């Protein structure tokens, strides 16, 4: 693979907007995605551990964790759609080469997630079939492993042709894994899973702190487990991150940035775990969001640097301003985001009391506005279509 060939693989249509906004959207949506994915893995792992313990607190925590895992899996997949979109717009040569060379695994990714999710739901509904929980965990880890390979593959353009056609003979079955780095996988999945779990447990304890039917002793237990998860996560992330820095980081000439970021995140959460509490769960969430953002930027930095060495300047990606599509996106965001906020307010309010509770009247009015916004979106959608139709004729 030479630089000219790499550049020639970009889609001739170009991006519909300057690549910088796409790059920013890619990182931000990746953060949302990886938070829910790692929260799902962490919750499921602790849920399975809890099911093996006889203490009442552990049993109760196991139920909570499995329920968290089911919802986080659904949201993780949904959130993953956005970074998946944006990566294909400005990193198409890397992404499409990876997905075709590992074609079998690319297509097995979703069946693995879907089956894992189904088994997880069975565990949630039945509560006592631990075996399906372990199968679910294995399937979700397989999916994570596949995605890790697809992502890491793109960092090694100089090896793509040899990976696809070892000895010059193409292998079109797509059965082999390429480009993986175990420490990176471990840090970004297991390290972050423990950290995400800690954050989620703090949020759980914070949310239920005023519910009279939830024993305070249980919440204190959850809080202590949250601290432990943060501690474990920071140690895992730091140790694996250091190995990642001296393996893939060194290969790509980025050992120092990887080392600094991973150790900084690890140290921050190790220290934070000493003083974190459920009362300040939102601060912990904010801090964690920031950490994930920094890690997301590091990942993009590695990709940019690796491809940049082959003459692939991501910010030089050709583009046209496609105003129609930008208008469509912005209009949809304006209609949808308030509705998502409304739904969050309803679920938040309904859980504040054992028997459920209505949101405040102002929230209800906000809900009415949300419905009007959605109806308004359809008016916009049809009007735009009629405008295009009229223009075509």
């Amino acid at each position, binding site marked *: 693979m030479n630089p000219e060939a790499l550049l020639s693989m970009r889609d001739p249509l170009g991006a519909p907007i300057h690549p910088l906004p796409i790059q920013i959207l890619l990182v931000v949506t990746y953060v949302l995605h990886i938070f829910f994915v790692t929260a799902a893995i962490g919750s499921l792992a602790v849920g399975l551990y809890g099911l093996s313990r006889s203490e009442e607190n552990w049993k109760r925590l196991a139920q909570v964790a499995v329920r968290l895992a089911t919802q986080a899996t659904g949201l993780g997949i949904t959130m993953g759609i956005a970074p998946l*979109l944006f990566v*294909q717009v400005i990193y198409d040569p890397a992404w499409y080469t990876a997905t075709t060379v590992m074609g079998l695994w690319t297509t097995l990714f979703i069946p693995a997630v879907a089956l894992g999710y189904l088994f997880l739901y069975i565990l949630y509904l039945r509560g006592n079939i631990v075996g399906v929980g372990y199968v679910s965990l294995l399937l979700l880890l397989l999916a994570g492993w596949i995605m890790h390979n697809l992502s890491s593959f793109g960092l090694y353009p100089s090896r793509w042709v040899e990976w696809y*056609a070892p000895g010059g003979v193409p292998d079109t079955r797509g059965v082999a894994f390429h480009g993986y780095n175990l420490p990176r996988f471990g840090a970004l999945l297991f390290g972050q899973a423990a950290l995400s779990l800690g954050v989620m447990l703090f949020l759980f304890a914070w949310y239920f702190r005023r519910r009279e039917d939830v024993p305070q002793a249980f919440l204190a237990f959850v809080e202590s487990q949250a601290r432990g998860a943060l501690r474990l996560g920071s140690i895992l992330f730091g140790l694996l991150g250091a190995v990642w820095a001296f393996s893939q980081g060194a290969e790509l000439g980025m050992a120092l940035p990887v080392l600094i970021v991973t150790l900084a995140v690890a140290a921050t959460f190790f220290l934070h775990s000493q003083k974190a509490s459920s009362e300040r769960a939102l601060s912990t969430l904010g801090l964690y969001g920031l950490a994930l953002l920094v890690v997301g930027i590091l990942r993009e930095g590695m990709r940019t640097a690796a491809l940049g060495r082959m003459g692939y300047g991501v910010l030089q990606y050709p583009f046209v301003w496609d105003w*129609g599509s930008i208008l469509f996106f912005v209009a*949809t965001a304006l209609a949808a985001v308030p509705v998502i906020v409304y739904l969050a307010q309803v679920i938040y309010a309904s859980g504040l009391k054992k028997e459920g509770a209505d949101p405040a009247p102002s929230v209800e009015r906000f809900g009415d506005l949300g419905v009007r916004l959605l109806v308004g979106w359809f008016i916009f959608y049809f009007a735009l279509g009629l405008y295009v139709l009229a223009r075509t004729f």
Partner: protein
Amino acid sequence: MYPVWEGYLIHSAIVVAIIAVAHVLFSHVTVAATWFNWWVERKALLENKPYLQDYLKASALRLLMLAYTLGAMFGVGIWFSVTASNPRGISTLIHNFVFYWAAEWFWFIIDVFGIAVYYYTFGRVTPKTHARIGLILALAASGTLAIIVGILGFKLTPGAWLQTGLSLDGFYNPSFWPMLFARFALMFALTALYALLVAGSLPKDHPARQEVIPLAGKVGLVGLLLGSALVVFWYVPSLHEHAKTLLRIPQAIQPVFYIKMAAGVIASGLVLITAILSPKRVSAPLGYLALALAFLGLFGAERTREVLRKPDVIYGYMGSNQIIFAEKAPRGIKAEAPRLNEEGVLQRLPFAVAPGAKGAGPTSGQDPVEAGRVLVTLQCSSCHTVSKNTAFLGGLRPLPALLKRRGMTDAPAIRAYLEAIGGFPYMHPTVGTSEEKEYMAMYLERLVKEFFPELRTEGGAK
């Protein structure tokens, strides 16, 4: 051009088809079910029939577990499978419609988050608030349909986009309006079958069962009749002449496709009529059976729609082999075929084969048959089985069987055939230099004899 993934055991196009139809089934059930359930919930409120809540809860749990999340997952699954099997095709869609898909992502979030809120707030918020969540779900689910229809229709009827290159022209394309309304109507038939399945699983004497089954029958039958009429009298006439020609060619659309579609429609219709006339005969197993038959019909319909744009993946722009053929492509893009014919495929494409390696062909003084394999894989494998890698259960339109059937079993005859296929309405001319076409013929001869050893003769290719 990217590396080629043929598939493993199962041909990549079949993988795409299976995942796509599963997605269509789940997602279509979801969209209409939200409207149906909203209607039932309002009925429960306005007519004071709290027992209908039992149906709604049972329906919502299945939607939460299966339709929403699996629907969304299989939607992403289509994406992954299409990416692996035809990366440049999906790349065209992504680079045109990334913000439309990103807009749809907002609806996905509302769907997946919203159904969880809907399910977990049964009895925990006022009925009015709960019904509003139901309405939000219905609107957002319809939003996903509204967006994907534009992108799906674009592949077959890109319309003015071929001249302007503007995404709005491609989105609101000539088949957009009929497909939008036909799909919206037909999904009520699917939802009705799903409602029969859910209501049929309630106890026999449950009042919700007795009330929902005939209601679902009526809604579904109207959807089925209206949707079918829209397909026949609006959608099909809106297609371009090329697609209409392919509809009449059995080599393109095999008669079995029509049989599957008819079976799906008739079976669905009969079950829905039974639900109206004799609701007591309807049970959950019947619902499962009806959905399975509807799946068969959907498979036929979706495959037919996919085949109608042959030989292209984006009609009039890019061939199924991922080569841009358009002579007047949008945004000043040049057709790639002429250059490849002149300079050679092996010289131009980074993943054709590693330079100087064993399979690099006579340019490096080595194995022309292996070079032919690369060229055949590049150009033919998106629609045909071209090696034993994907020959499971006969493969997909397997080239060795096809060549044998037509008596093309040696390289000179195959070479002549390769020159002729550009004359078929569902094939593009083979691309490459004359020498490269020779290599392709040599590989195909080896392939035929690999599959049919009885054709081997002394001195023939092994």
